[in-house]
């Protein structure tokens, strides 16, 4: 992910494994950074709990062969559909133990749900892509997994109308936990949705079973669209698992993949702009606030993505591309110089010799 790094050595957390503390009643789990995420999810599932941020399994997109780890998911702040309602990884990292570029072991946070003691280095290190410290152990807040899942499907809406419907859904009192819009070709990649043959807007409810029935019915009634359908628990779980893992994204092996984060009402404009600019294929998650785009791995396409995100006053990330493109362009937006100066100083404060993933996020840093 992000810019290729030239480094003399690679440091793997593969052997830093194991759940070190799990207290279901206190809603916390601690594990070493190299623990496969799947192991953590399995342990949580045994107690009817789950990782709130619903991180994607990016294997299909990145071609990575090793299992995702806790540390990796935190370092990349990888978060899935539920993020729109219940927060990203960075919202649930309660504590971190890490080794800085000084070679010092530091902790921030702890194992409790509320903590305002000192600077929040858990937030700083989450999403820092291994450039500030090597995360060796982390504590996550977890929540009960829902007893049941339901999905209201609004077929036949274009991106703008779809995002508006999702906005109404997310602005309803029914605690919608995910909201996505797929054009027809993207929807066709998920069997349960292929039958619609149209674009679909999807709103998920996760609750006790009776509440799912009540809330999906109410949502459908309140939003007053023709031909809405409700997907049952089994179908919903399959659909949202596919959503989580970016199944709807039609990305050729040579394609680049970008994610653009904007205010939800701007998502459709970004999607349309990029479709026009280079035939970009994609879909919307987070009610329109997250745009996934696949397209040719060219600087022209990349510049179009940058421009579209900037016009919408949002941000973007080049998630996947051939190394040559990733070495040639910004992979995340450059910062205004006063902020870039702070970035350089904070990087120096944690990694004075610049040994941790040099150049991963910004060229020369």
């Amino acid at each position, binding site marked *: 992910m992000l810019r290729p790094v030239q480094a003399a050595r690679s440091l793997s957390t593969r052997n830093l494994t194991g759940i070190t503390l799990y207290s*279901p*009643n206190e809603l916390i789990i601690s594990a070493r950074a190299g623990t496969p995420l799947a192991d953590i999810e399995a342990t949580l599932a045994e107690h009817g709990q789950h990782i709130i941020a619903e991180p994607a399994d990016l294997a299909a997109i990145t071609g990575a062969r090793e299992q995702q780890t806790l540390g990796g998911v935190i370092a990349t702040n990888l978060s899935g559909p539920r993020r729109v309602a219940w927060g990203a990884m960075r919202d649930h990292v309660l504590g971190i133990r890490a080794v800085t570029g000084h070679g010092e072991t530091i902790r921030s946070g702890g194992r409790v749900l509320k903590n305002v*003691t000192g600077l*929040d280095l858990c*937030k700083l290190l989450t999403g820092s892509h291994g450039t500030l410290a090597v995360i060796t152990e982390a504590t996550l807040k977890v929540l009960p997994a829902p007893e049941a899942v339901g999905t209201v499907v609004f077929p036949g809406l274009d991106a703008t109308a779809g995002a508006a419907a999702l906005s109404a859904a997310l602005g309803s009192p029914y605690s919608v936990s995910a909201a996505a819009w797929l054009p027809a070709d993207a929807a066709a990649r998920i069997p349960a949705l292929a039958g619609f043959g149209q674009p679909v807007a999807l709103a998920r409810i996760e609750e006790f079973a009776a509440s799912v029935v009540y809330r999906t019915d109410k949502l459908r009634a309140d939003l007053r669209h023709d031909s809405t359908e409700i997907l049952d628990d089994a179908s919903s779980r399959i659909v949202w698992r596919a959503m989580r893992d970016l199944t709807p994204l039609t990305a050729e092996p040579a394609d680049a993949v970008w994610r653009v984060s904007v205010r939800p009402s701007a998502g459709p404009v970004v999607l349309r702009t990029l479709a026009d600019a280079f035939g970009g294929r994609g879909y919307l998650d987070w009610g329109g606030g997250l745009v996934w785009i696949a397209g040719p791995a060219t600087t022209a396409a990349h510049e179009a993505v940058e421009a579209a995100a900037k016009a919408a006053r949002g941000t973007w990330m080049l998630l996947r591309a051939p190394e040559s493109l990733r070495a040639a362009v910004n992979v995340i937006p450059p910062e205004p110089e006063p902020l870039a100066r702070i970035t350089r100083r904070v990087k120096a404060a*944690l990694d004075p010799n610049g040994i941790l993933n040099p150049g991963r996020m910004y060229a020369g840093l």
Partner: protein
Amino acid sequence: MGKRRCAIRWFDGRTGAAGSARLLALPEMGDHFPHMIRQPEPKADVLARRDAIVDGLRALLSAEAVIAEPLLLKPYETDGLSAYRQPPLAVVLPDTTEQVAGVMRFCHQQGVRVVPRGAGTSLSGGALPMADAVVIGLMRMNRILDIDYADRCATVQAGVTNIGITNAVQGRGFFYAPDPSSQLACMIGGNVNMNSGGAHCLKYGVTANNLLGLKIVTVDGEILSIGGEHLDAAGYDWLGLLTGSEGQLAVVTEVTVRILRSPEGARAMLAAFRSNEVAGACVDSIISSGIIPVALEFMDRPAIHACEQFAHAGYPLDAEAMLIIEVEGSPAEQDDLLWRIREICQLHDPISLKVSQSAEESLAIWKGRKGAFGAVGRISPDYLCMDGVIPTSRLPDVLRRIGEMSDDYALKVANIFHAGDGNLHPLIMFDANDPESFHKAEQFGADILKLCVEVGGCLTGEHGVGVEKRELMPVQFTTQELDQQRRIKSAFDPGWLLNANKVFPLAETIERSAPAS
């Protein structure tokens, strides 16, 4: 009567204990308090240039936006930790971000320390000035700039009150979730800097989980926009680092918050138990049943009695521990959740259960709990309110040890506990007319905070470190960890001009902070 009652906070530099109290002040005491907190040495050159500095500030803002007369500085000399009083060099009350930037540029050039201030409700002394510091008061920047219901966000100036945001959106059925109990007065800029919580935070998160963007002014006067109306950062999480940074990294002038649609309704119930252990076990059972209530409050026997005497809410006086539990949803969903919780409570042999059938009954259940601090103040005019966090599983243990300390110190204590998130508020009752009683209360408070860290918790869940817990930081962090935090602070503020007397133990601050350039 001739007696003057004033709210004070006490701090003992030796023990690092702190808390709040109301002191029955005798007229002859005036403003003399025997225990003052250590401050960084005021910069002699800054004090010497005071008039020029004030003139310089007046050139940047309108004259009436710069306060320098001693009498007019008095309201700014303290905050919610009102034992400590230090008039600043001057106070400025800017109207715009550009004015704040001008002030910061000027102070940076002049090497003048700065203390940002919101409503001044901090219970940890977050806004306590220094003699050579300029207080930047954000309270005039109190406009709501934009509300967007489709994108579910609102952008407001830092001086808007917490409740002001909810008030602005509740007509459309929305609210701003983090709701500290000072929300009628506290300002969103202060909420950001302290990462404030509130009764709803188990379900809805704290301030850090409810922000989308900030406009800040750096120590050298640059204006930066962090985030915006979109979710997630692509670079480093500056939004996350700035939240809870206690005014030490930048001055916040605008805040973009998430607004949420309110649920259909909420209802409460009350459950009384024979012991703290049983109540704790009941909390465990509720959580492991898959229910996350929107509120889960625990009160021990002294707290129950205090609240009942004060509010006559019908609390059971034979209970050792009591839970107030609130759930949200449609009326039928509320019924279902309350029924489930009731069934769970029954398994723990409760003394009594009361499930509210209406909004009025819910209010009645809450009435005592909401008056808790006033209730304790009625029993004992003076008390320290602590703010520590413990793993919820350790509650019975910690309460037992607090009880033992209470016997040892011969001071009564009542405990309010946010059972869902582990935030403990012990209220230590003492007699301010007896200096020995006060010293003991301070030590008791410090011992409780140390105990919180010992059992795997932390020093503060809501109130922040401020000046109050500054000297206790080494209880929770190693020297390396504090040094790393200090380096990061220095990355934003190499000259340690922003709120230098806060958060970090003072000796090291004086030793390690770079001289003004």
